[in-house]
């Protein structure tokens, strides 16, 4: 204020501490950064927004909230070192779908292996989504193209796959005989009973083939 002390203005401006409160409230509630001119326009006559702003900036130094200059305007923001409080990483563990497990198993046991071969072994078509998911997980990758008509791409398992499943090489995978010995093949489905359940399931995924996501419908959690 330029008024000389001898001639005080008709209305005194509020004390600077109050002006600081005003700037604080305005910056807090505004949906956009506010310029000093706007602050002055909004505050009572005779206020000095720039001086109040200065005080406010000092007050918030080192706090969880800081007063920042954004272009020509001012805004309050949370301190940048606390940004991690504003987000939380939620890790969800999901079981791989049956289609993906089977596809992965076939690639592992039969690599290098084309999509048609996978389909032949599974007895149902394999959705794009299933392959994509395994590629994304970096458990399978493209191998050499097969030297047959159409030169189809093949899939092989990756080092990441071996690491995840604790295998030295794909050749270390237990064979059918070992699986049987380990009791994994004991539950032989009788045609028309136990196997039927599998059948229905596969038919379902066959129906929705190509939609990828739907095929993965059976993932839990």
């Amino acid at each position, binding site marked *: 204020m330029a008024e000389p002390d001898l001639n005080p203005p008709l209305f005194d401006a509020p004390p600077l501490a109050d002006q600081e409160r005003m700037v604080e*409230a305005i910056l*807090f*509630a*505004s*949906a*956009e950064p506010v310029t000093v001119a706007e602050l002055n326009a909004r505050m009572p006559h005779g206020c000095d927004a720039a001086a109040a702003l200065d005080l406010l900036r000092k007050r918030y130094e080192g706090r969880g909230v800081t007063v920042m200059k954004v272009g020509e305007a001012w*805004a309050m*923001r*949370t301190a940048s070192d606390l940004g991690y409080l*504003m*987000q*939380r*990483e*939620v*890790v*969800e*563990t*999901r*079981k*791989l779908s*049956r289609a*993906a*497990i*089977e596809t*992965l*198993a*076939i690639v*592992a*046991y039969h690599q290098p292996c084309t999509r048609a071969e996978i389909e*032949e*072994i*599974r*007895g*149902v078509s394999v959705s794009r989504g299933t392959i994509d*998911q395994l590629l994304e*997980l970096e458990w399978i990758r493209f191998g050499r193209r097969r030297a047959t008509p159409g030169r189809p791409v093949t899939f092989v398992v990756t080092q990441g796959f071996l690491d*995840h*499943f*604790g*295998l030295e090489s794909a050749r270390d*995978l*237990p064979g*059918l005989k070992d*699986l049987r010995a*380990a009791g*994994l*093949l004991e*539950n*032989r*489905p*009788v*045609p028309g009973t136990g*196997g039927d359940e*599998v*059948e229905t399931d596969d038919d379902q995924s066959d129906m929705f083939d190509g939609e990828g996501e739907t095929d993965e419908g059976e993932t839990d959690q």
Partner: protein
Amino acid sequence: MTAFCADGPMAEIEHLQSHVSDRLAAEALIVDVDGFEGPLDLLLTLSRTQKVDLRQISVLALAKQYLAFVERARELRIELAADYLVMAAWLAFLKSRLLLPPDPEDDGPSGEDLAAHLAFQLERLEAMREAGAKLMARDQLGRDFFARGIPESYERVRRVRYSATLLDLMQGYARIRTRDEFRPFVMDRQSVMTMEEALDRMRNLINFAGSWTDLSSYMPDGWGSDPVRRRSATASNFAASLELAKAGKIEIRQGDTFAPIQIRRRHDG
């Protein structure tokens, strides 16, 4: 309005004095009848003309005022909502209870009890009305005090981790191989008719369908007996007919829910 007054000569005089203003008030009320939130609200407004604390209110006088109001509305042929009339009937009953000596045969509530309850209801309504006003007079968020103008959203970054064990893998493989031992997968295709197959068949057959024919008659020979094959062929035929309809080749209709679906060739198609 009845000239009868039970409260003694003083009340009679008061009554006469307030007669004109009462009538004016009643008329003003009638003009504004839509502004009332039900009979209790009207009673509360009428009770204010008594200019006493609600606890000292004369329910009898109030009942009379209300009945006069309803009477006046009737004269002016103003339709009153049913609940106003129900209240009028109840107040008429209350009035007779208050005026007549208690009937020893009747063990129902006394007129005083009923009057006291009405006074309580009025007081309670007024209290709630005041509470509402006090509430609205409070500082309000977004009007007097404000929340953060630029809220920073709290994000939940979702990361999905897929789990699979070697056991899952081996079991998966075993499942496929075991199935192979019993039922070669090629068998599966024998009971499936794809939509492409159905479409090819129907494209040829449809040229002969100048009149409405049931879609079920397009079942290939030998597919109708086995339920699995029938299901597959029906679904594929249906899907194929939709394709053909979309392409403008055929028309399709169904008389009712679950009625047979019929198709015929489009003459212009």
